């Protein structure tokens, strides 16, 4: 392990589990896993790249390759591909005005990196040229949902439907409602869409099943939620977002051993790796320190490069694996400036409770009241903190 990649040292940090630079001794020693040629997605990407090389001035060819990279990277939870997509889009983004399709692809990459303001700017440029760009409206709605601006998201979902993406628009609306205390209606809408299955693409069906799983969680219907997660994963078994959401579901149900099986092949993804580490912690596994070290080193590498896209994960790492509630609360406050999905509210409240600073969570508690967020885990947590806030506090100094 190179000294520069070492994580911030803490008194209890174990030594790096890696040896110094070495020369392998066996020809067959596996040094690194990479996507295999046999993977159909890898084959498709190669074909799309060849197509672009044959016709480098084709925007359609660039768009197809960029989208393939973006989708593959999302599936793997590997941001390298977002970078490759950006390189493909670069000549189009250098033009003024840039074509809307390139702007929307770039916005998708920026959204993935949690650079939400920059993503919005690209989407607005795209919509200024093409007000009926359903994909641009949907991406904007998704960003507003992540950032907790539900009134804007409702409007944008209706624009998705008005721009020709009627099923997409309805699913979008169903999704927003689940955050506004209307999870029941959300479930009805999404179930109806899922019923139209034959006419839908596989990734779209998986997305709807994933939304249904989360909506069922809002309603505290664990059996339904698990059923939907399994249906979604049967459709897209490698989808990193779904794997991680289902892993969180299993961790909440005290089923950590199943997380290790579920994410066996996903350790390359930082978000999946955190769930593996949390499962190791729940199981008191002897190799937990190694997982904690690697997770810390990965976050440190992100910090060194000036990226900060895993706020939510960093809070959970600080809280449950570094056992540092003050740091967790500090990270939660920073994350809340960027992301306000239910999980962001939840980790904030958990950090505030652990740090014994209920008053620090007042803005989050107000947000939960205002949006009428339904969630069987978050609601009792919020009530507990509200009680602590009104109770006389004992000064610590």
């Amino acid at each position, binding site marked *: 392990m190179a000294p520069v990649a070492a994580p911030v040292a803490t008194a209890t940090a174990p030594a790096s589990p890696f040896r110094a630079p070495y020369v392998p001794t066996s020809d067959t*020693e596996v040094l690194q*896993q990479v996507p295999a040629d046999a993977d159909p997605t890898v084959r498709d990407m190669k074909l799309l790249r060849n197509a672009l090389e044959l016709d480098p001035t084709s925007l359609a060819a660039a768009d197809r390759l960029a989208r393939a990279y973006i989708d593959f990277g999302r599936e793997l939870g590997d941001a*390298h591909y977002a970078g490759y997509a*950006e*390189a493909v889009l670069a000549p189009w983004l250098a033009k003024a005005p840039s074509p809307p399709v390139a702007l929307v692809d770039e916005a998708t990459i920026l959204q993935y990196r949690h650079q939400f303001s920059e993503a919005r700017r690209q989407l607005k440029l795209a919509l200024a040229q093409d007000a009926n760009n359903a994909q641009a409206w949907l991406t904007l709605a998704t960003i507003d949902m992540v950032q907790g601006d539900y009134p804007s998201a409702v409007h944008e979902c209706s624009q998705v439907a008005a721009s020709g993406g009627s099923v997409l628009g309805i699913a979008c609306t169903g999704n927003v409602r689940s955050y506004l205390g209307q999870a029941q209606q959300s479930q009805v809408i999404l179930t109806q869409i899922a019923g139209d299955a034959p006419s839908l693409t596989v990734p779209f069906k998986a997305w709807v099943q994933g939304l249904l799983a989360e909506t069922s969680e809002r309603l505290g219907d664990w059996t339904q939620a698990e059923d939907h997660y399994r249906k979604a994963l049967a459709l897209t078994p490698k989808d990193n977002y779904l794997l991680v959401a289902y892993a969180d579901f299993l961790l909440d149900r005290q089923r950590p051993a199943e997380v290790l099986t579920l994410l066996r092949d996903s350790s390359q993804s*930082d978000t999946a790796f955190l769930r593996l580490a949390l499962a190791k912690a729940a199981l008191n596994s002897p190799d937990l320190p190694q997982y904690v070290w690697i997770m810390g080193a990965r976050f440190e590498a992100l910090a060194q490069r000036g990226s900060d896209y895993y706020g939510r994960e960093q809070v959970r790492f600080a809280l449950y694996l570094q056992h540092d509630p003050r740091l967790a609360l500090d990270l939660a406050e920073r994350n809340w400036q960027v992301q306000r999905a239910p999980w962001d509210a939840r980790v904030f409240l958990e950090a505030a409770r652990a740090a014994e600073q209920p008053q620090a969570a007042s803005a989050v508690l107000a947000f939960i009241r205002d949006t009428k967020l339904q969630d069987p885990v978050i609601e009792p947590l919020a009530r507990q903190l509200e009680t602590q806030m009104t109770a006389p506090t004992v000064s610590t100094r």
Partner: protein
Amino acid sequence: MTAGAHSASDAYLTLTQESTAAAIDARNTATTRQASAAAQTVVHAQWDIALRDLDFVLKLDDNGDGNIVWAELRKHQQAIAAYAYTNLMFSADGGSCRIAPTRQMVDDHADGAYASLMFDVTCPGTPARLTVDYRLFFAIDPSHRAIVVSRSGENVATAVLSPDKASIDLPLRPQASR
């Protein structure tokens, strides 16, 4: 534990200015050998580049089975060096410096295995600044970053190089005069 790819592409460039004593020894040796030998400054470097990234451009996994094994990497070491060193340049106080590769190893990081390129940078005279010009991967992945750590005596300078900031000036410790 199998190391996999991680969220984004990083390379690590660590530069260590040769200790004064060693530099003087080197100069003495040079002087003994050749009376007119000019003073020069040597910086040792370790450049860790992810195999994952190298595979994307150079295809290291020859049989395409999804595993880069040592035999495959060894076969590509020359190609890796040729590719990498054309994308890195050093100069000092305006004069160009020479890169002399010493060896290539493997280094494990939290997100996977890296090719570790060891080399010496030799610059004429005793310059006050070393300029690094870095271009690796920027054309195929603008989100690639080089994390640079430079040690010169007690000074440690760090920098992150990106397409928008592909060059950096690093201070060199003045050589002790005799």
